[in-house]
């Protein structure tokens, strides 16, 4: 971010933008943590070189601008096999348990451009579980979902993805799962076969299926404690008995009543199993 004046965007103006977006488009950001949200709005203002007056007017008058706004307001930073130790724990502590299941449904909530969902797909494939699995990726943003559906990624990012994959306990080479083009790579179509990407808003939408695993990592940190609780309750209701919940490394089940309904599978990697 370029140097920012403290006067660029005030706290009341952030609230005004939240209200405006809710009234005009029905997207409710009132449960988002404000400090991060403010930085995202400032980022958009800097990218577009606009002030608060332009921002208001563009939100009201331009659907195209709003699409871009929605893309930039949420954080879409992701990697394949991000936090390799988490994927190692999945492989060692969760997947052996799942091998007795006839069907394995995975929900990756807040999936962004799909890298994490495809990481799950690769692991399931390597553990011979993929044919029995179906992976749902959801996000509020249609543009990131389009990228996820294509499964085409920047070649430059594959070095990091590959390093992550190796650190997670790789049994193959990541390049076995994609074809390289000039500046991009295309994931193997068999990884896309049992996947579905669709719009779902954690703020307003409800249970839509029953899952054996729900993974929602580094999404809850952008929400207030109240919204975090709503979303965690939604996950609880969406899990089958003995289903697994995976959160980001700094995200917790802080509500004691809800926490008592889960067993801790991995304390460091934040993997839980629904027991009640």
């Amino acid at each position, binding site marked *: *971010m370029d*140097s920012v004046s403290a006067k660029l965007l005030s706290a009341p103006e952030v609230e005004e933008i939240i209200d405006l977006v809710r009234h005009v488009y029905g997207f409710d950001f009132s449960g988002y*943590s404000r*400090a991060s949200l403010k*930085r995202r709005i400032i980022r958009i203002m800097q990218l577009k070189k606009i002030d608060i007056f332009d921002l208001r007017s563009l939100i009201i008058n331009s659907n195209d601008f709003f699409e871009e706004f929605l893309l930039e307001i949420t*954080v879409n930073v992701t990697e394949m096999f991000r936090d390799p130790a988490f994927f190692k724990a999945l492989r060692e502590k969760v997947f052996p348990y799942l091998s007795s299941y006839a069907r394995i449904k995975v929900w990756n909530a807040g999936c962004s451009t799909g890298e994490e969902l495809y990481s799950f797909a690769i692991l399931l494939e390597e553990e011979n579980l993929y044919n029995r699995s179906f992976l749902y990726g959801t996000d509020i943003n249609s543009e990131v979902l389009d990228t996820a559906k294509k499964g085409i990624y920047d070649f430059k990012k594959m070095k990091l993805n590959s390093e992550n994959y190796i650190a997670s306990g790789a049994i193959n080479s990541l390049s076995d799962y994609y074809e390289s083009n000039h500046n991009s790579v295309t994931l193997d179509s068999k990884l896309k076969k049992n996947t579905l990407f669709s719009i779902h808003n954690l703020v307003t939408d409800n249970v839509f299926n029953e899952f054996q695993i729900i993974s929602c990592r580094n999404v809850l940190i952008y929400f207030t404690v109240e919204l975090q609780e709503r979303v965690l309750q939604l996950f609880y209701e969406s899990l089958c008995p003995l289903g697994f919940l995976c959160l980001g490394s700094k*995200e917790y089940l802080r509500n004691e009543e809800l926490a008592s309904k889960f067993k801790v599978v991995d304390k460091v990697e934040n993997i839980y199993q629904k027991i009640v």
Partner: protein
Amino acid sequence: MSENALDIDQKLQNAELLILGCSAGGFLLVYNFLLKLPANFPLPVVVIIHRSRSYKSLIEEHLNGLSSLNIKMADDKESIKSGTVYFAPPDYHLLVETDKTLSLDNSEPVHFCRPAIDVTFQTAADTYQDKLIAILLSGANSDGADGMEYISELNGLTIVQQPEEAEVDIMPKAAINRGNIDLVLKMDEITSLIHKIVKLKSNF
């Protein structure tokens, strides 16, 4: 006493949060600084050190064992309380919310850094305004300069380690070059401010 010195005493006395940032060459300085904080130090402290996510540092645990204060890695949505030192976790930006809680953010690195000093400094200034003391030490990039400028705009107190003394002077120099630093001090002088803060706040 000059008007400027009175003004600085006033800011030290009004302060409700102390925030420290550094990178290369700053690690030991922060370590020694924190160990000098007395049990009755009246301000909560937030520390941002650039560190790699692949390197699991145990600095918080180690310091916590040696200090009479509670020294820990910051948690998402944790309340900011005096008697506590919060470190930004590796690979996350640490943000201060208006209700004086901390939150984490996994967005793009700033100056190739996550955590970035600028992010914490700016969000802390939004909440604490002129009740903030920010200290920037040795470091190898210009992270922190924007944050210091922002804090200064909101009348917080800005303190930078003297570049001649810093092991790596890029970070202190970048901040000083913006022209809005209240105090440029040697590490000894920065450390002696601890006692001044304790004294001023206890007479308040």
